[in-house]
């Protein structure tokens, strides 16, 4: 393997890592705040991608740079509506923490197949954020990957700042740390729940916009990303930011290199094997505190 390939693979690994990181952050946030594992988050990812595609190259032909913020806002709203319409009503029922798993699975079934109905099974191509490569002497690095990495990290930093410095962000953290404590200081729990789902929707949209240009868009595209994000979440330890970051990049880089040497289809088994091994020795994840 020459240096250029090594660097490009490494970069691809880093960018993939930010995608997993953002998805994992979304999952963690939702789980921490609402205590719900959203099995339909893969569908958020897919819907975000198809929305971006339809607005730009697919149907309406709008400028992609305009489409991106529209998609982000739309998916944020989608997440909030999803929570209000589907998850919130279930909270009143007994045994809701199990029911909600079934319902989110049912939602993913409906949502994914709705995409299939509307758009058909063939893959769609999503535009790159920037075409072409940067050229350093004889090394060429894909511009898209660099931008992906920058944006991904930027979004992550903004998220962290939001969570630690703003009232709403701190409120979200408070709810995830002590539900009763949150009530007695007057936090509007229902609003926080919706917000968590909304942010997860937004993060999924960012993730798909970053990743889809490379992997193409198809109706079940969200599932593999969701599962990998889950592995990251578990490995990193629920709520442990540092752990999640490390886990995201470690796994993504491992995935890229193993795909290069062994072939892409082994990514899922690899992730699963790693997950099982880690959980056997540390049932709370690598850095878990949960």
């Amino acid at each position, binding site marked *: 393997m020459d240096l250029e390939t090594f660097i490009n693979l490494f970069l691809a690994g880093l960018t993939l890592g930010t995608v997993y990181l953002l998805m994992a952050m979304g999952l963690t946030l939702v789980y921490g705040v609402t205590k719900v594992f959203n099995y339909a988050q893969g569908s958020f990812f897919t819907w975000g991608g198809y929305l971006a595609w339809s607005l730009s190259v697919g149907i309406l032909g709008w400028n992609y740079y305009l489409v991106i913020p529209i998609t982000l806002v739309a998916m944020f709203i989608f997440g909030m509506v999803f929570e209000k319409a589907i998850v919130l009503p279930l909270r009143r029922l007994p045994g809701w923490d199990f029911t909600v798993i079934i319902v989110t699975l049912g939602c*993913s079934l409906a949502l994914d197949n709705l995409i299939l109905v509307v758009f058909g099974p063939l893959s769609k191509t999503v535009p790159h954020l920037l075409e072409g490569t940067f050229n350093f002497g004889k090394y060429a690095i894909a511009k898209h990957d660099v931008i992906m990495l920058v944006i991904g990290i930027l979004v992550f930093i903004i998220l962290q700042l939001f969570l630690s410095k703003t009232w709403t962000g701190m409120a979200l953290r408070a709810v995830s740390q002590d539900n009763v404590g949150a009530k007695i200081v007057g936090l509007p729990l229902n609003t926080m729940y919706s917000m968590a789902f909304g942010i997860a929707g937004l993060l999924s949209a960012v993730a798909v916009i970053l990743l889809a240009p490379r992997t193409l868009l198809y109706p079940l595209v969200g599932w593999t990303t969701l*599962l990998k994000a889950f592995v990251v979440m578990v490995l990193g330890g629920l709520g442990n930011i540092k752990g999640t970051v490390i886990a995201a990049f470690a796994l993504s880089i491992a995935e890229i290199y193993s795909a290069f040497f062994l072939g892409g289809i082994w990514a899922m088994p690899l992730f699963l094997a790693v997950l099982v091994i880690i*959980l056997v020795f540390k049932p709370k994840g690598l850095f878990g505190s949960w």
Partner: protein
Amino acid sequence: MVNNLRKAIIIIGLLGLFTILPFFFHRSNYIMNILILCLIWGVMAASWDLILGYANVFSFGHLSFFIIGGYTSGLLAEYLGLSPWLGYIAGGLAASLIGFLIGIPCLRLQGMYLAIVTFSLQFVLPTFIVWAGPGKFENFSTGGSWGLERIPSPNLFGYVFTRSELVPWYYLTLSFFVLFISIIYIIIKSNVGLAFIALRDAEPQAKSLGVDEYKYKLMVFAISAFIAGSAGAYYAHYFGLISPASMSLDVFLIVLIMVLFGGLGVFPGAAIGAFIITIVNELLRPTLEWRLVILGGIVILTMMFMPKGVMDILAALGRLGRRIIKIKQAPNSAPT
């Protein structure tokens, strides 16, 4: 006492009903096929309910056992000429063994973790099947993504079952269904079943009495895997074909819905759920691509309004029925 008598009557009545069904439908292979599928999925769903609803183990990989059983039996039939009758057992054993091996590390995990680990099997198993497909090994192939074909039908004292004659298949399947449902019922009513009800309703007390949760969970995991594997083997020999598509995400969700629709941990809810969903699934076929969207919608609505599943509705209907009877019998006396 009266309750048991009533239950016995219902069971015999249903059995009788199922036995004579072919007399009405034997002309339609389409309907006979649906009935057979209902029975096969009924066993599969009931076995899943055993681990999910009774033992409260968030195992989402149960369909994998079904597939493992199917492939094992099919491959053994193809490469070793094993008879399907033995294949059903072999498939069950293979699934059970793998279930046992997976269970040992995984059953110690907490709910959510276990759910995702077992769920990932959905995605991992097809990878292996496709990998060991045509061309990979010289004398062996799983059929890859095209699947295993020409799986032989069972041979009963010279009579070879064939898909052009579904009535014999139906009775065979019915016997298979009765056998396994009875086994499941016996397990539920046995000490193992009691242990789980104790664990479910009063965990600390049960544990202090020495109920070893892990051991029981492992046992039920292996047993329910056996049943699922056997069902899978049966399925393989019935269709003559099994492929990775048989465990696609759609199939997974539909079978899971069967279990939940019937109500978790309420015997025989899962089997009833399987019947209803199989039929609804068929009825929705004319909607083509919309079928799964609608099915997903049904799941959502069901859980919202009937979180305990079909058994809840049946129980409510039962109470309503009894109250109507009481009112009819004594219209002038005050309600007690």
